[in-house]
């Protein structure tokens, strides 16, 4: 958070007023997040009292990552008006890229351990072959594909988590924005991109294990001694920190001149262009930056989920992301967080079978079956009757928005 403060003064158009004074919601949010993180950590199985189960800590940590992705979505859609149906693809891509290292490094550990008892010490090639068979045997291969070239190195793979989705967003955004694809056209195009990516990953010869995806990601290489209950808390805290940083970054971006321009682009793109601003450039920056944030969120999410497969990237996931933001309230960062948290937690509660069934006499509503219907119609209702979402309710209570 100190980083954000230092960065403040370096940027042009800054009004020399601290961020938290211009946007007090940042302080409220950070405070709430810190308290929440502390409470859960203290109550967790791994580090504290054991009142909160490890699996629930994981769910909470994953939810925080989804909230971060929702902030990215809110930036690009709520503030800049680009309804991207591709940000969950970036999210998944981040997961894949970190998953490759997790899977490779752990398999390497296992292979080396199993070859230790061999009659001859294994050569590098033998280890590589064994890893290849171990990972790709399931799709009928044993060669390690080219895309796994850097999978052995955590720093490179971490860099790729930023670079690959960032470059993809940059190229795609450049192509789309320069030909002035806007509105629903752009949404459809991003959806097509998402579909193309997920279909590509579904192939067995994509080099990423087809529809098996990557698995066993919850096991950190070299840390077999640390129990999952502790690892889950680490990831939970990391997710909370990432969410806090992401919130600060987003709040900083939307509070200055940059924020004013992207909001203006949302409201009337043509007018901003006539005023001499490089609309495409601003859009491209927002699109690419949010793609990277989403990818980082994904890179934190999937080690907690433990498994990633192409179905996660399917277009519907990206639409859900938009749905969360819409339910939470677009154009407010806390709205995105509230939407993602409420809907995804409710969703896992309803589909987990814990929600009580509703007997109607002639028919019993089992929420596992009817949750989607409720969500769908609930979403329509929010769009129709509460265009500002749940965040709009907060606004009414506080009577002070974040500049909207």
């Amino acid at each position, binding site marked *: 958070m100190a980083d954000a403060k230092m960065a403040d003064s370096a940027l042009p158009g800054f009004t020399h007023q601290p961020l938290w004074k211009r946007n007090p919601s940042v302080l409220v949010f950070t405070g709430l997040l810190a308290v929440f993180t502390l409470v859960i950590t203290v109550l967790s199985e791994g580090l504290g009292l054991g009142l909160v189960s490890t699996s629930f800590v994981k769910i909470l940590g994953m939810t925080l990552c989804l909230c971060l992705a929702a902030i990215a979505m809110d930036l690009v859609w709520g503030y800049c008006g680009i309804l991207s149906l591709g940000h969950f693809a970036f999210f998944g891509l981040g997961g894949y890229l970190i998953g490759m290292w997790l899977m490779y490094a752990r398999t390497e550990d296992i292979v080396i351990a199993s070859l230790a008892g061999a*009659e001859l010490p294994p050569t590098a090639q033998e280890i590589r072959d064994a890893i290849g068979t171990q990972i790709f045997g399931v799709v009928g291969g044993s060669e390690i594909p080219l895309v796994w070239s850097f999978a052995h190195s955590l720093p490179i793979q971490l860099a790729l988590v930023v670079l690959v989705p960032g470059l993809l967003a940059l190229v795609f955004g450049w*192509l789309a924005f320069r*030909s002035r694809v806007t509105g629903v056209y752009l949404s459809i195009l991003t959806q097509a991109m998402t579909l*193309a990516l997920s*279909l590509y990953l579904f192939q067995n010869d994509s080099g990423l294990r087809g529809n098996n995806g990557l698995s066993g990601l919850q096991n950190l290489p070299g840390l077999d001694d640390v129990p999952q209950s502790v690892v889950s808390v680490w990831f939970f805290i990391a997710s909370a920190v990432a969410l806090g940083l992401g919130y600060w970054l987003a709040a900083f971006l939307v509070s200055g001149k940059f924020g004013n321009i992207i909001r203006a682009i949302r409201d009337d793109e043509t007018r901003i262009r006539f005023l001499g601003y490089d609309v495409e450039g601003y859009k491209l920056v927002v699109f690419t930056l949010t793609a990277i944030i989403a990818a980082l969120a994904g890179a934190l999410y999937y080690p907690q989920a433990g498994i990633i497969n192409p179905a996660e990237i399917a277009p519907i996931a990206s639409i859900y992301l938009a749905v969360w933001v819409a339910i939470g309230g677009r154009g407010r960062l806390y709205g995105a967080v509230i939407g993602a948290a409420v809907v995804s937690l409710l969703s896992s509660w309803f589909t987990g079978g814990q929600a009580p069934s509703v007997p109607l006499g002639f028919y019993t509503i089992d929420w596992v079956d009817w949750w989607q219907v409720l969500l769908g119609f609930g979403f329509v209702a929010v769009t*129709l009757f509460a265009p500002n979402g749940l965040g709009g309710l907060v606004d009414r209570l506080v009577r002070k928005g974040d500049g909207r």
Partner: protein
Amino acid sequence: MPRFALVLTAIMLAIAIAPRAMPGPHSALAQTADGTMAVVTEPAAPAPSAPGPLQAVLQANADAIAKPSRTTVDTVIAALLESNAPGAATFLAQWRDRGVVQRKADGLFFYGVETADGFSLTDPDTGKNTGNAAKADVTQLRPNSGVRGVLSSALVQFQLADPDIAVRESALIAIERGAEASQLEPLRASIEAESDAGLKARKTRLERLLTIQFDPSAEARIAAIESFAGDISVDVRAALNPLVATTPKAFAEVPAGTNVARALAPGGDIPLDDAYGLLVTAGLAQAAPTLAEMRAALIANRADGAVAGVPVAALGSQAARMDAYARLAAAGTVPPPVTEDAKRAALATVSIVAVYNEPDANVTAAAEATLASISRSLALNQTLDLALDALSLASIYFLAAIGLAITFGVMRVINMAHGEFIMIGAYTGYVVQQFITDYTLSILVALPLAFFIAALAGVAMERLVIRHLARRPLETLLATFGISIALQQIAKNIFGTQARPLTAPAWLDGAWVVNDVVSISTIRIAIFVLALIFLALLLFILARTRLGLEVRAVTQNPAMASSMGINPDRINMLTFGLGSGIAGIAGVAIGLFAKVTSDLGSGYIVQSFMTVVVGGVGNIWGTLAGASMIGSLQKVIEFFNPSNTLAAQTYMIIFIIIFIQFRPKGIIALKGRAAGD
């Protein structure tokens, strides 16, 4: 049982008349006449009555028949053929089916049908029942499976000339499935007397095919091969491909007369190790130990924690292992390793060539030439088939997307629930079939009903949701998405997750087959026709009716249309109903060839969007162009990568994203003021 046997024998007799009518090849007739004479003049065997001509031949070969083996059965068959005795075919069939018995008392052969206490005997010549025999008095002949196989193929030639066309046809089919060299002559012999023109053509064609494979004369084979130029049938390719099959071989010097297809470059056409393996097989080089063998040798030669002086712990790299192995080889413990360079050097001194399995160079040349002409013809036909497939896919996309295009054109909203209207149509078809079991009738009822129900759902959605989100296209997109997931789940709750069948009527089964390459299923033709009908219908509505005029006006400029007295709300509602209704129709059509599931529509929704975006908004011709382009594109990509339809879709979408760069407004862009927004 005996009565059954009699009937059977009578049928057999009827069949057995055939060989007599068959004109024997060449000089066989004269010989046959002589043979018959000889048989008749021969003194009769001690029997109640004089033996018939067949029995006489049988008696002449009695030992070979009683104890048949693969070597002797041919002489029996030849003798039977030569005698041209009536009933020879029946005898062969009976013999094969273990229906022949030999009477121990006089050695005569009969057809015997097993009864409770023995056999009911039938004379092979007269076909008359000659009474019963106890089991102990006769021996049943049990030829082994090898002999039975020979008998079966011998029977084919009798069947080929059978008066019953069904028998001839089944014999022909038997040869087509698995031909043998021995069948060529009988087949040739049977062509001339063939009365049925269609069967004659098939026989002639099959004769040419067999000639390619079995004729001893190279000229005849070449003539037959050349006669098939441009013929794309699978059987021709199956007959020709073995002729041009090659085997890689290594020679120090290629012997004269070797039918060489081409030289192979080691490391290029053939992997280095494989080429070296050929060298070893040909005895031209020493076998090279493989990596695995070297590893095993190292393990076997460990002593005191070291191999040939190299400590085992140091053997963790390939270089160290090679070093240790070289030391072992130097000590003479293991065969020496062969390095890559040594392999290359050894290969440089010899020729690696692909040798035709067929020794005759003229035959292979003719086969290559014919195959080349076939592949040209094949490419043409494959293109045609691809075009048909693309047309069919395009018509499906057109049906799925046209409703979307109309609503998008008029209202500028993307209806994410469009796919679910397709699903509603498909389920309507399924439900109708539960009540109306006649498939033709049920489809005729389902089509308008699906239109009506989907249109109703569309109108309801327009009135309840979309109207209230006017001028907020992104919100509309998301709201309709909410409806989409709700509808999908409701369908899942009602119909379950398993696929429901929507059965096509029998007259839609089958396919229109032009040749072995070009064919298209009847359902797809029907869908194509359906798409054409709706294209015509929509063109008529838009161009010739009041509604169409108003729709076009609202599409071009809603505000102006409104000020000219057109009620845009009414137009929106009707358009939405029309678009959704066509989606319902598309659902019935899609359900006919795909299983009906709750996510049936979502599989088509992205393609439909693509069709609209690529084609251009608010124009039927644009949608048609978009559907054609996407359909053909997908089929073409699938053709180049047939094993992977997923990759095809990926590449197609990437292509579309790039296409949008050059024509952001689609193939057919809307002109006028409306084009601006």
